[in-house]
């Protein structure tokens, strides 16, 4: 070390004087170096402290985000969903069938998650967490998956499904890449009306419920007024401010009610999808007793008043008060037993001596009740039943499609005396109306959020004065205002939806904002459990279809 750096008086040699540099400087750390080391040690200490802190609060440090509210119970239990060293998503290098099975099994312990489609390619179906990613916050909707998960296959569905000989290669291969008028097909389930109820929305929505002159009068041929309704029904249909002499004016809500109060009949007939839908999502099924019976009685005998002329080509449905009416909803056997019991009751009530007629020579067991009736009673009842059937047929076929039927003797209350006699009776079967409780069979719809719209905006064809502009898929097949318009699908189609369910923009002509409502796939569609494929089940259902009435094909799900 040079002398110059030492303290204390000493003599500087010439060598020390020319020694300009302290040659040992690099043995000592500068301020910078010392500060750097201190900071490095501090960093190591902080890192160790962090690790210790993290061990006490794993969720805060290592969870990438809160789990969804539905999984909040397991927020601090990673093992509830995870398996150590097994990737929960299958878009990684290290995913295997075994890890996926294990992890999906944890999800399926609580969630059923049925398969999407019979023709899906299993290799293309992701693990549960691949689509339903969690750790996106409490408010995340795990079922709202990204469009791409659907488009990945549906953009070219022909190459993303199993090859099946029963399905033509070119069938249902419309590419779907987003919801708009260009990239999404028209709603297939709105193409035709599968219902077989003869009905005229046009007539029922007109004042007085007639296409004829709408002048009130007292004649039976005139339009309906509130005064013609029974008192119990009148209050239900009476418009605010209207009187008994005013024409009856129905509205949509007169028949299409929203709520959760399914009748006992409807509960048995609605689809599982309808039953599972939130209250008010779909219109409740129209019930005869509740929505039709006020005007439509079901007579099977002559009426008290004069008949109504057929002014609009439709057979009259009203001509005074019927003397006797059929209950609604009976099948052929039910009609037979109802008529036979009614006339038998009339016969016995009118001639009490019939009760004393001798029994048959060989009494049969009690179930063969017909054997106890005398032959003349049988012929009388059969004659009346035959007349009633003829009359009732006319009543029923005003609204329903009918088909001749034959009844076995065992089905009747009074078995025919001879086969020939039984064959003469004009039994008929009423075809099911097949009015769908849900029209958009492949999508969800909820009337609730749309209740602020006028019904006319989506169901314009149901209004008699509305011009048919072909807006909906099924709106161009029949002229509006025709006597029967039941073949017209009165639900607006895709274009009506895309007016709102589209990206927010401004109308180029009016400048008003349009769109903005959600338009992603899961807004309307579900994924899991779409049910059997129509084409695949054709063969198995052909036998049962053959047993059905002509045209009695279920409202099959389009592909």
């Amino acid at each position: 070390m040079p002398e110059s750096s030492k303290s204390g008086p000493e003599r500087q040699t010439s060598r020390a004087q020319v020694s300009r540099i302290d040659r040992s400087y690099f043995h000592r750390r500068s301020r910078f170096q010392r500060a750097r080391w201190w900071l490095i040690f501090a960093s190591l200490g902080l890192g160790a402290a962090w690790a210790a802190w993290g061990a006490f609060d794993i969720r805060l440090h290592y969870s990438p985000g809160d789990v969804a509210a539905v999984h909040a119970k397991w927020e601090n239990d990673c093992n509830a969903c995870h398996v150590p060293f097994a990737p929960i998503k299958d878009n990684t290098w290290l995913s295997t069938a075994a890890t996926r099975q294990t992890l999906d099994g944890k999800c399926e312990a609580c969630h059923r998650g049925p398969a999407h489609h019979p023709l899906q390619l299993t290799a293309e179906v992701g693990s549960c967490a691949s689509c339903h990613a969690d750790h996106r916050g409490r408010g995340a909707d795990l079922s709202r998956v990204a469009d791409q998960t659907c488009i990945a296959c549906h953009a070219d569905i022909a190459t993303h499904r199993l090859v099946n000989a029963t399905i033509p290669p070119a069938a249902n291969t419309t590419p779907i890449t987003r919801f708009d008028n260009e990239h999404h097909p028209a709603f297939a389930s709105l193409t035709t009306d599968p219902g077989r109820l003869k009905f005229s929305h046009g007539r029922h929505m007109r004042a007085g419920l007639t296409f004829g002159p709408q002048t009130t009068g007292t004649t039976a041929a005139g339009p309906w007024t509130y005064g013609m309704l029974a008192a119990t029904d009148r209050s239900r249909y009476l418009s605010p401010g209207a009187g008994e002499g005013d024409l009856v004016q129905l509205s949509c809500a007169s028949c299409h009610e929203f709520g959760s109060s399914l009748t006992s009949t409807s509960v048995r007939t609605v689809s599982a999808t309808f039953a599972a839908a939130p209250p008010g999502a779909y219109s409740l099924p129209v019930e005869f007793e509740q929505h039709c019976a006020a005007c439509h009685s079901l007579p099977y005998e002559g009426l008290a008043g004069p008949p109504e002329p057929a002014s609009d080509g439709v057979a009259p449905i009203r001509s005074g008060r019927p003397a006797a009416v059929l209950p609604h909803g009976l099948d052929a056997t039910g009609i037979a037993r109802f008529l036979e019991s009614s006339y038998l009751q009339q016969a016995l009530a009118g001639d009490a001596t019939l009760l004393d007629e001798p029994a048959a020579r060989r009494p049969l067991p009690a179930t063969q009740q017909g054997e106890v009736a005398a032959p003349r009673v049988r012929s009388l009842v059969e004659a009346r039943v035959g007349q009633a059937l003829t009359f009732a047929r006319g009543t029923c076929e005003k609204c329903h499609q009918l088909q001749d039927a034959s009844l076995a003797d065992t089905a009747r209350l009074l078995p025919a005396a001879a086969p020939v006699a039984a064959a003469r009776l004009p039994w008929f079967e009423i075809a099911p109306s097949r009015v769908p409780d849900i029209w958009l069979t492949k999508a969800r719809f909820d009337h609730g959020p749309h209740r602020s719209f006028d019904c006319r905006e989506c169901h314009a064809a149901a209004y008699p004065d509305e011009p048919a502009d072909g807006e909906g898929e099924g709106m161009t097949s029949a002229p509006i205002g025709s006597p029967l318009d039941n073949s017209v699908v009165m639900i607006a189609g895709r274009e009506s939806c895309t007016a709102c369910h589209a990206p927010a923009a401004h109308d180029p002509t009016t400048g008003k904002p349009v769109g903005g409502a959600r338009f992603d796939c899961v807004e309307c569609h579900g994924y899991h459990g779409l049910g059997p494929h129509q084409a695949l089940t054709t063969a198995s259902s052909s036998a049962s279809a053959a047993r059905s009435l002509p045209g009695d094909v279920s409202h099959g799900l389009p592909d």
Partner: protein
Amino acid sequence: MIIGGKTWPKDRWWIIAICIASLAAAAAYAAEWASDSRLPGGSSRTGLTAGIVGGLIIGFELLLWPRKRVRSWRLGSAQSWLRAHIWLGILAVPLVLMHARLLFIGGLLNWALMTLFFLVIASGIWGLVLQQYLPQAMLEHVPAETIYEQIGHVARQQCRDVEKLVDTLCDHDPAGTAADTASRHGTPSDEDDEEEHAVITGFRSMTGIQGKVVETLALYAAIPGTLPIRRAFVAEIRPYLLDGMAAGTAVAQPHAAARTFATLRVASPAAAADLIDRLEQACERRRQFDLQMRLHHWLHGWLLVHVPLSVALGVLLAIHIPVALWYW
């Protein structure tokens, strides 16, 4: 390390390589993004690959520190290591971004990692930028540059040199104290009085080459009328030469120093002009030392951020890897 110039051919290949690697990684990431509809995260194929490569790069970056501790090992030149350190560090940015789902991440550890990573990168880039300009500025403005750690030593040496001149050539101050003539650092200048020469540090510039030289001056008798020089030396010049800006004397500022020495020239005999010039040159060199210290602090101060944060990043990365693989 200076980018460009003579090293441009090597840097060019690095730049091309990291551009290609970054574009390839981005293309793969975008493709997976398009097919998966969601931003690929750290566990996705491209995300995991980017994370592994990024982690290896960070590990390599951290090796630069031990590499400097074992300079004697034949592990490639320091320049090559530094060049790889710089360019691979830049390549790590897009890779880490892709691994981190373009920063759409959660978890305190992940955010701490990302914060540290970008602080390290930012401090490194800041240091790299400074190194492009400050060495040249030091070369231009600090011709008397010396080893940073030796500035105090050299300053004291220079102070001793000129103090010897002042003690020999200037009148003694009758009102002065012993401290006015004795070296504050214990250098026994009185004992050197009997010597007839002095060795001092000079500065020469010749044909574009400039640097310090050691000069030997013959010492003669004191110059009458130089008491103001001695007093100025004791009051202002010596404290400045020893402590620099911290002394707070007027000669620390160039303009004030010029006025001080101009006054001394007027008040002193012509024979003392050379002494005054040498005092002024000593003050100028001290100013250069001060400037060198400031430049040195800028040039190396970023390392106080870069290195400790890099170590912290390495620690958190060592926590992140096993935790991420445990539940992913």
